[in-house]
Each structure stands twice: as C-alpha cells, then as structure tokens.
C-alpha cells in the first residue's frame, strides 16, 4: 500500500514518462508530445492530453494507463482533460523519441515535409531514412499503414519494408 505524499507537478511529469503509447510501446507519452499540461491543485491532478489522430483508439487506453500509473502512487483524484486545440503535430515529438523510434524499426517523422496539407499529388515525404540500413533511397508503398499515424515505405537499397511515422503538421 502506497500512501500518497502531496503531489508535485515535477513528480507527476516523472510518472508520466513511464506511461507508454500502447501502439508504439517504445515511446512514452511524453516522447510523443501528447501531454500538454499538468496542474496540481490540492490533491487533484489534472493532466491535459491531446489526440494524435481524431479516431486514434489508443487515446482511451492512454487515459486509463495514466490513471493507473498515478493510482499506483496513491493519487486517486485525477482529471484527464482532452484538448483539441492547438492540434497535435509531430513537431512535438522529442528528439529522444525520434531516436527510440528509429532503433525500434520505425522511421521517425521528417519535419516540415508533410505532403497532405499542400495536396502535392503523388508526392512523398522527402528523405525518409530506412531504419535498418539508413539509406534515404526509399519509396512510398502506401499513404496508410498499420495505424493512423504511420505510412508504409520500402527501402530501395536493402529492400526492407518499414513503417514511417508520418509527418503531421
């Protein structure tokens, strides 16, 4: 049984670092950049999160896992606030997160190359690096991959098919 000391914001941020994205377990929710704010008022903790994609099924799981992690420290008065604006962008993904993603076999987003927004037809995100051989000779196989946040690429040098965490900004 853990008895709760008065929560501090710094401690809560530390605990949130241990909550991972259920679909990309190598990333913490802080790496992903979806935790926008933590506020402590008395014994009430408010965690503000923002969805990556509107229909991302991981969001409910993430909210539950935040509650469970904080409950394990004895913090039961937790409010999870969902905030839509400003909308999440891959620019908020941490450098550590990007390195973890690549080591895990998923190419991290290449900033400033979102192709969707400018409607550049048949264009692809530029210079997506193969997470295996690090070559940038890669091609887009499909704009849509195994989850809402990924596209499907293939390396032209080592031929490895891989997921690319889409640039979303």
């Amino acid at each position, binding site marked *: 049984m853990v008895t709760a000391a008065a929560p501090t914001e710094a401690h809560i941020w530390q605990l949130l670092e241990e909550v991972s994205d259920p679909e990309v377990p190598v990333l913490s929710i802080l790496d992903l950049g979806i935790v926008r704010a933590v506020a402590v008022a008395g014994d009430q903790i408010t965690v503000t999160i923002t969805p990556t*994609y*509107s229909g991302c099924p991981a969001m409910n799981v993430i909210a539950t896992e935040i509650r469970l992690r904080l409950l394990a420290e004895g913090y039961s008065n937790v409010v999870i606030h969902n905030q*839509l*604006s400003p*909308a999440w962008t891959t620019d908020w993904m941490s450098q550590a997160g990007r390195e973890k993603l690549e080591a895990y076999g998923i190419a991290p987003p290449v900033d400033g190359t979102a192709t*969707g927004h400018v409607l550049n037809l048949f264009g692809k995100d530029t210079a997506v690096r193969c997470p295996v051989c690090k070559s940038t000779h890669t091609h887009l196989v*499909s704009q849509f*991959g195994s989850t809402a946040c990924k596209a499907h690429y293939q390396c032209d040098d080592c031929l490895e098919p891989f997921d690319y965490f889409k640039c979303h900004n």
Partner: protein
Amino acid sequence: MLPQNDSRVAAATPAAAPGPLFPFVLQLADTSLILAHRLSEWCGHGPVLEQDLAMANIALDLLGEARSYYQYAAELEGQGRTEDDLAYLRSAVEYRNPLLVEQPNNDFAHTILRQFLFDNFHYHLLKALLTCPDTQLAAIAEKSVKEASYHLKWSSEWVIRLGDGTPESRQRLEKAIATLWRFGEELTTATPSEKALQELGVLPDYATLLPAMQAHTAYVFAEATLPLPGPVFGQQGGKTGRHTEHLGYLLSELQYMQRTYPGLTW
C-alpha cells in the same frame, strides 16, 4: 424500427429547438459517421491490402471526427442525450447527412468518386471553419483538417489512376460519375439552419468555397484525362431528413447492438 416503449424515443424530439448550431453540428456528425460506416464496410474486402487499410484508416479518422461533433451536439442540446444516444437511437428521418455519403459502395471506382466529392468539400469547409467564431467548431476543424487534406490527396490520386488507367478502370469511373455526380450539389446548398448560421457569420457562404473546390476538380479531372461533367439536376434531401432507401439498411446494421440490447455499454 424504433421500439415504441423505449423512453428515449420521447427524448428524440426535443420540445424546444436549441438554435441553428445544434442541427448543423448534428449534420456534420451524421455525415462523418455515415461515410465512416460505408468505408468500414470495405474492411476485409478491399481490392488490395494497402487500399483496404487506407479505407479503414479514413473511416477511423471520420469516426473520431464524428464523435467530437456528437459530443458537442449533445452539449449544445442540453437535454441529457449523450453522443451514443444521438448516433444509435435516432431513426433515418432524423439523420441529417447529405445523400452522397449514404450511397452504397458499389465498386471501388464508385467508392473513390464518392470520397473525392466529399473530401473536396470537407477539406475546404474545414479550412474555412478554422476561423469560425465558435471556438469548439474551430478546434474540431483544426484537428480534422490535417486528416481531411490527407484523404483528399488519396482520393484525388485514385481518381487520376482510375481515369488515366486501363479502359476497364476508366469505364468504371465514368459509370460512377454518371451515378454520383448528381449528389454533389447538396453539399454546398445551404439548409435553413445553415443559412441562419451564414447570416450570423458562424459559417462561410458556401459560394466562397466553390472557386477552390472547382479549381481542384478541374485539375484532377485534367490529370485523369476525363472531361468535366456538365451541369446535372442535383438530388437533394438528406440534410433535411429526406433520404434514399439506402440509409435505413445502413442504420439497421450500424444501430443493431443498441436496438437489440438497449443501454448496452462496452
């Protein structure tokens, strides 16, 4: 059919209309939900795995967007109905989606053309809603416009591939145009509640969206080597509750669980 002894049926027709924003937000919600359902019907049946995944992904984005609207609509209505009540316990005549999105999938070319007509409107509408004085609508638009732009890119590329593809793909796309073009006009024809919101400055005048929509269509059709369809008589009615027969069948599938086991929760 609505079960007549269900107490929630009475709540389905609120006594006091909560202003023009509620029906409009509900219309946006219904539109995204119905199209999401149609796209999800492809799951496991797509022509190739990548495009099966693409349609499921787009369906998921639209479903998420629909939830944001339903939650907001429930709040605006203030009658105690939840997002689930709005999605699962209204009958076809209460649905406010335009006719286009309830049209059956038919073949891949029909699905692509339906998606293209919708995405071209959806993307430009959301872009205009970014500066909407209603902050919640603006926030949902800010979230969804990124996804909608990705959808429009996908459906535009497929119109080009099919139009400028094989004689078979082109012929199928031409057939889809002949079937579905008539449903495009309803998207940009304002209903009384949309007109009221336009007068209040909440919604843009749809005429201001048309130049960008038409320019994009002209560009995509030129790339697809397809002639631009001439004017057709537009079919309308969905946004005011007069639907094609297809919606009833769709809802009987979509609402099956709640109708069979009222109050069921996950």
